[in-house]
C-alpha cells in the first residue's frame, strides 16, 4: 500500500493477525486513522478471523481457575501471572561446517579473527549493557505510566471534587487532549445515572468548524465516576471544545441535544 490507497484484504488480515513488520504496521495504522472504508473492512476481516478462534475445540478450565479469578477481583490484586517462560523460536543456524576451518594455512587467519571477534564481543557487550540500561529505564517509565493509569482508572479509587464553600458537587469532566497524537483522557465525576440502554458519548468539536467527532462512549459507576482512556481518534484534529451527550448504548454518528457537559479549549 502506498499513500492514500486502500489496504488490500491480505494486508488487513496480516495486520489483524499482527504478523507484519513494524514499519508496515505503522503505515497501515496511520492509514486506518483516516480511512473509514479500511476500518470497516478491517472489522470484517477481524470478524472472519474471530470465527477461527471461536471454533477451537473447547477445553475444560484448569481446576480452581474460576475461584482464583473471583478471589482476584474481590481483592483487586493486579497480577497473579508467573513470569513468562522463554519459549525459544526456531533460529536458522548461520554457522559454517567444521571443514571450513581445517588446515594449518587458516591458523593465522583464525588468530586474527579471534582477536577481531574479541573486540567485537566487547563492543557488543558494551552495546548490550547500554541496551539493558535503556530497557530498564523504559521498563521503569512504563511501570510508572501504568501506575498513573491505574490510579486514574481504578474502580476502587476515591475521587473527590473540591468546590468552594459547601456547594454540592456538580457533574464535572476533565479532558486532557494531545491533538497531534489523537491522544485523549477523560475523567468525569458526579455524573448522573443513565437510563437503561444509554451511554454518555464524548465529542471533539474541531476548530476547523467541521462536524463533531465522536470520541468514545462511557458509563459512570455507582459513584458517578467514569474514565475514557485513549479512545481511537484520528491524529491531528485541532479542537476548540469538547462536549458530552447522552446517546443510545451503541453510540451516535452526530450528537443528540442537549449537550450535558461542555468545555472550550483555552484560547479558542
Amino acid at each position, binding site marked *: 500500500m502506498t499513500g492514500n490507497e486502500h489496504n488490500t484484504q491480505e494486508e488487513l488480515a496480516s495486520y489483524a493477525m499482527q504478523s507484519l513488520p513494524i514499519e508496515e504496521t505503522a503505515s497501515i495504522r496511520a492509514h486506518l486513522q483516516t480511512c473509514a472504508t479500511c476500518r470497516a473492512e478491517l472489522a470484517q476481516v477481524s470478524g472472519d478471523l*474471530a470465527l477461527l478462534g471461536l471454533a477451537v475445540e473447547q477445553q475444560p478450565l484448569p481446576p480452581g481457575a474460576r475461584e482464583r479469578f473471583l478471589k482476584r477481583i474481590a481483592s483487586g490484586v493486579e497480577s497473579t501471572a508467573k513470569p513468562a517462560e522463554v519459549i525459544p523460536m526456531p533460529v536458522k543456524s548461520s554457522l559454517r561446517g567444521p571443514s571450513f576451518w581445517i588446515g594449518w594455512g587458516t591458523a593465522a587467519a583464525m588468530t586474527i579473527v579471534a582477536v577481531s571477534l574479541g573486540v567485537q564481543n566487547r563492543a557488543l557487550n558494551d552495546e548490550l549493557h547500554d541496551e539493558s540500561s535503556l530497557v530498564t529505564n523504559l521498563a521503569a517509565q512504563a511501570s510508572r505510566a501504568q501506575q498513573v493509569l491505574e490510579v486514574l482508572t481504578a474502580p476502587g479509587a476515591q475521587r473527590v471534587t473540591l468546590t468552594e464553600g459547601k456547594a454540592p458537587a456538580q457533574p464535572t469532566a476533565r479532558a486532557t487532549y494531545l491533538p497531534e497524537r489523537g491522544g485523549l483522557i477523560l475523567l468525569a465525576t458526579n455524573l448522573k445515572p443513565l437510563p437503561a440502554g444509554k451511554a454518555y458519548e464524548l465529542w471533539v468539536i474541531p476548530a476547523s468548524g467541521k462536524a463533531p467527532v465522536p470520541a468514545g462512549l462511557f458509563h459512570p459507576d455507582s459513584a458517578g465516576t467514569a474514565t475514557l482512556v485513549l479512545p481511537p481518534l484520528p491524529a491531528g484534529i485541532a479542537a476548540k471544545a469538547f462536549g458530552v451527550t447522552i446517546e443510545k448504548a451503541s453510540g451516535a454518528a452526530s450528537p443528540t441535544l442537549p449537550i450535558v457537559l461542555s468545555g472550550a479549549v483555552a484560547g479558542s
Partner: protein
Amino acid sequence: MDDGLVLERVRQGDQTAMAEIFDRYGRAVYSVALRILKDAGHAEDVMQEIFFQVWRNSDSFVQGRGSLGAWLVVVARNRSIDLLRRRKPTDSVDDVVLAAKCNLASEAEHNALIEKVQQVMKDLPAEQQKSMELAFFEGLSHSEIAEKTGDPLGTVKTRIRLALITLRKAFQP
C-alpha cells in the same frame, strides 16, 4: 441475560456479573490460549489477565466492537501469540474492533457455530487449511509460512485470501 446488560452491571462493580461473563466465555478464551501456547499454566495466565482487564476497565469493550465472546477470543489469540513470540503486547485491548458475525451468549449457539466453522475449515483444500493454521495459531507472517512450507510467497498469500473468502461467504446472511 444479554451481554450488554451484564456488562452494565460489571461497570457498576458487580462481581457476580463479572463471574457471569467469566462463566460464559472463560472456556473459549482459555481454549484458544491453550491451543496456541500448548501450556496450561500460560494459557490460564493469559485468560486471567484478559478477564481482569475487563473487570478493571469494562469500557474497553463497547457495543459496536462485535460480540463480546468474539472480541475476547481475538484478544486472547493476540496475547497468546505475543507470549509465544516473546513480544511485548502489540495492541491495547481497545484496538480490536470486529464486525459482529454471531451472538455467542447461549451455549447452543456457540456449539452450532463451532460445528459450522469446523466444517468450513474441513472442506478447505489441505494447503489452505495449513496456511491459515500457521498464520492464525502460530502467528507466522506470509514470508515465514512460505519459508516453512517451501511454497512461493504469492501462493501462500492466495491460499490465505481464498480461505478467508470462503469463511466469510459461509457466514454471510
